[in-house]
């Protein structure tokens, strides 16, 4: 048996290679980050967990290029239980089509989980961003299933202390502000190991920069960060 026939077998897993070339992710707009992610971007039909030490370290700017692209492709963006007001002028200048934005403000944690599951499962939302106060592993598994069903990109923003909790999310990132810029650690990804941080320059100006929506539509990977 030679190597070629061996790697053809379905039960052989090759470490390091990208296992699912046919699945394309949603480009993050950052070529360094795209290179780390299976499918070259944020995973569709799965959960992404973003662990942060404080609200506002740069987690929104990180997902903003992908959100802009989804909204311009007429996919809905659901914001469930955001901690503050998603500020419309900034969203517009980041290239988001506001007519595709839906903000959901549940009154309790349980309602919040329910709303996230519904929006993920419905299949009409391109991305569901959620700020959940409580979510144990069982709940996360439900949400992951819902995201698979609805082929939706679910993004959960959670405090850093959740890093120790087992998670069924397809992608887990940990963000950390450093003197070199925002460090993005990949804690978990499909078909690969956890990997060391990449640094996003401190003054990356995507979220605050003034380029009109029409220009944002044409943003290529890596624009504004290099």
């Amino acid at each position: 048996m030679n190597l070629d026939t061996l790697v053809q077998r379905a039960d052989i897993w090759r470490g390091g290679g990208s296992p699912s070339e046919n699945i394309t992710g949603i480009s993050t707009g950052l070529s360094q980050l795209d290179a780390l992610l299976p499918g070259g971007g944020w995973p569709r039909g799965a959960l992404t967990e973003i662990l942060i030490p404080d609200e506002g370290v740069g987690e929104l700017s990180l997902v903003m290029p992908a959100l802009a692209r989804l909204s311009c492709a007429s996919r809905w963006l659901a914001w469930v239980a955001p901690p503050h007001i998603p500020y419309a002028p900034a969203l517009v200048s980041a290239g988001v089509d506001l007519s595709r934005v839906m903000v959901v403000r549940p009154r309790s944690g349980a309602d919040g989980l329910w709303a996230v599951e519904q929006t993920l499962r419905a299949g009409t939302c391109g991305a569901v961003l959620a700020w959940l106060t409580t979510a144990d592993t069982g709940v996360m598994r439900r949400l992951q299933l819902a995201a698979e069903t609805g082929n939706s990109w679910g993004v959960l923003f959670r405090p850093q202390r959740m890093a120790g909790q087992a998670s069924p999310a397809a992608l887990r990132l940990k963000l950390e502000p450093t003197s070199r810029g925002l460090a993005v650690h990949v804690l978990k990804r499909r078909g690969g190991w956890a990997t060391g941080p990449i640094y996003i320059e401190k003054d990356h100006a995507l979220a605050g920069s003034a380029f009109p929506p029409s220009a944002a539509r044409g943003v290529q990977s890596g624009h504004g960060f290099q």
Partner: protein
Amino acid sequence: MPLRAACALAENLTLYPRDDVLEQEALKQIAAWSTQFTSLVSLSFPQAVLLEVGGSLSMFGSADKLLNEIRDGLGELGYQVMVAIAPTPLAALWLARADRVEIVEQTALLASMLGDLPLSHLRLGEKQLRSLEGMGLQFLADLVRLPRDGLTRRLGKDLVLLLDRALGRAPDPQKPYVPPHRFRSRLLLPAEADNVEALLFAMRRMLAELGGMLLGCGGGVQELSIQLIHRDEQADRDEKDVTHIDLKLSALSRDPEHLVVVLRERLERVTLEAPVIEIGMAADTILPLASHPRDLFAGKGEGEQDWQSLLERLRARLGEEAVHGLRQVAEHRPERAWNSAAVGDSGRNTRTPVFATRPLWLLDEPVPLVTNDEGRPRFHGSLQLDPDRERIESGWWDGDDVARDYFVARNTRGLRLWVYRELRDQRRWYLHGIFG
């Protein structure tokens, strides 16, 4: 079985008086529901509904399929029905009563198909029936075989005309029933219901009824009012406890499944004071809903429907105001430069300025910041301000004027913040946004 005999057999028999009015109402509701199959529906009291389906057969493929659909549909509404299809209304009625042969498609076959029907199925007058029996006639075939003129002389014109109409030799026009352009339905529950599932089970029926009627008149509803009538805890009161539920949809709908889903979320928020014994449902405004329910191309525009249905589910459970969209407003005061909007409406037509530096998060209220000894603002550590400032002075015309210098600041934990300094009074510092 006589009442006495029944009571003797079953000791704990509960007796309900038969309610003619309710029966007639039920018949009318069945007729309204049936308008989805044909435009010509007529009532045949006391217990039959006639549908002219000649024009609808090709749409449903075959008489068999149509019959099944009607029978299953009425079964879902909770009725046990006997159905038949025949070329004349009377023949269909008699066949249904006999509950034997269900489909006769050719007029020529009628005489032979109807031949073995007992004469009692014709619902003739008592006297007429007795005299026919006296003549030794039992089945319809016996009657048909007799010479017409003799029959007319002995039993009158009416009986002959009846036979002619049944066999398709004489026209038999029916008076069409036009259902009222609103929906009212009441359902007495066979058992007290105290949970959502039991209530939904009953309501599913009523919604199917509504759906059929809406399909018939090409309409949809946007508002549905529901009354849950509770068991009377104190029997001496006249007034019963009623829980009112008003269901508002974001778009017209006539799909029972969709209504059930929305209703489920709504009911889960309702606390029942006492078990429910009766449900009332009403839709007063029925508006034309342009779509093609039985279209070949069902599935077109499905995404939009899914979206509406998601929106309604969220609103039903979380409340109307819990789901909204965002809009940019042409306004320089940052707290007024946005507004919540109806989902999907971003007011794109208005020209809005694109600002250089705006944070992704705006705080609900600006947070006053403490300052250190040198007068520098602090927020989780002292803040380092970018040299650029943006002065916003606006709003003197509505009394809510602001005069502020905005800065981008960074704290020791790596957060980029949007802070401002009042240009008046105490010249205090505030945190207004986070760049996120």
